[in-house]
């Protein structure tokens, strides 16, 4: 085993963390779909934190170790079409994912305030936990990450 094998393993672990984070957020979205109950939303705060850790580790790890491999291995070049496609998709995922996170972070803060004030129900919260802008952005993030995985495996043009 040489250094490149370790880098590939870390790249793969990062990819698994990124896809796992999408799964975690999907479970939260489905479990809290159109809930009016602020306490239900706040109960998932720790899971949300773990999901954010997975996103951070996955996003940074895939790009750092991926670029490292593209430079280090003779078989790949940074300017290969499939590598450029992955980098562009990764950047778009980062931007869309940030918008998604901002949307749901605002909803979580709203739920925390409602729970602190003792409010048992909120139609506004239910709307935010349904088919909101953040929800559709999460759908887009999922599709983009799937596209990256397909690109990484098939390596079109390589």
């Amino acid at each position, binding site marked *: 085993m040489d250094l490149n094998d370790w880098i590939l393993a870390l790249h*793969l672990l990062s990819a698994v963390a990124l896809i796992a984070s999408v799964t975690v957020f999907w479970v939260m979205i489905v479990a809290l779909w159109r809930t009016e109950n602020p306490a239900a939303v706040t*109960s*998932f705060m720790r899971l949300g934190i773990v999901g954010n850790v997975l996103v951070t580790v996955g996003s940074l790890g895939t790009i750092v170790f991926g670029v490292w491999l593209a430079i280090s291995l003779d078989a790949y070049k940074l300017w290969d079409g499939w590598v450029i496609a992955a980098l562009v998709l990764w950047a778009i995922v980062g931007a869309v994912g940030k918008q998604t996170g901002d949307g749901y972070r605002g909803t979580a803060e709203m739920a925390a305030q409602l729970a602190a004030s003792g409010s048992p129900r909120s139609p506004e919260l239910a709307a935010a936990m349904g088919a909101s802008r953040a929800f559709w952005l999460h759908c887009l993030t999922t599709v983009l990450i799937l596209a990256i995985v397909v690109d990484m495996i098939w390596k079109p043009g390589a």
Partner: protein
Amino acid sequence: MTAVLASMRPDSWNFPLLLHIAGAAVFFGAVTVAAVTQLTAARVAEPDLLRRVAFRTLLIVGLPAYIVFRVGAEWIHSKEFRDGADDPSWVGIGYLVSDLGALVFLVSLILAGIAVRKPKGWLSRTSGVLSVILLAGLVVATWAMGAKPD
């Protein structure tokens, strides 16, 4: 060296590999959900909701994802090692974690299911700890699949 070899994969391996990787990653996510929700259920306002989510996630997401990643693994194994030669140690690590992991997963799933009906703290905690152990095994297996130690 194995990183270079990985770049020379036949196209016919790609779809089984996609199933294997995507299934394993979604399984990892499902087990993460179960671990966190079970271990934090006692400290939140809606503990029953978290226990329900843990069980349903393991059953509806985790179990199908495990089957998909295992089918993908067998499929690609049948293509990569078709001459009956001995498996390298990284494949052995994968099978070991996968087989033991299935056992740990089933016990965790059963405990999570009982915890939904009889919300006793130790059931949730035990299920959560088993999920954490399973996650550690999955990290080791994922490392082995990438680094491919001889």
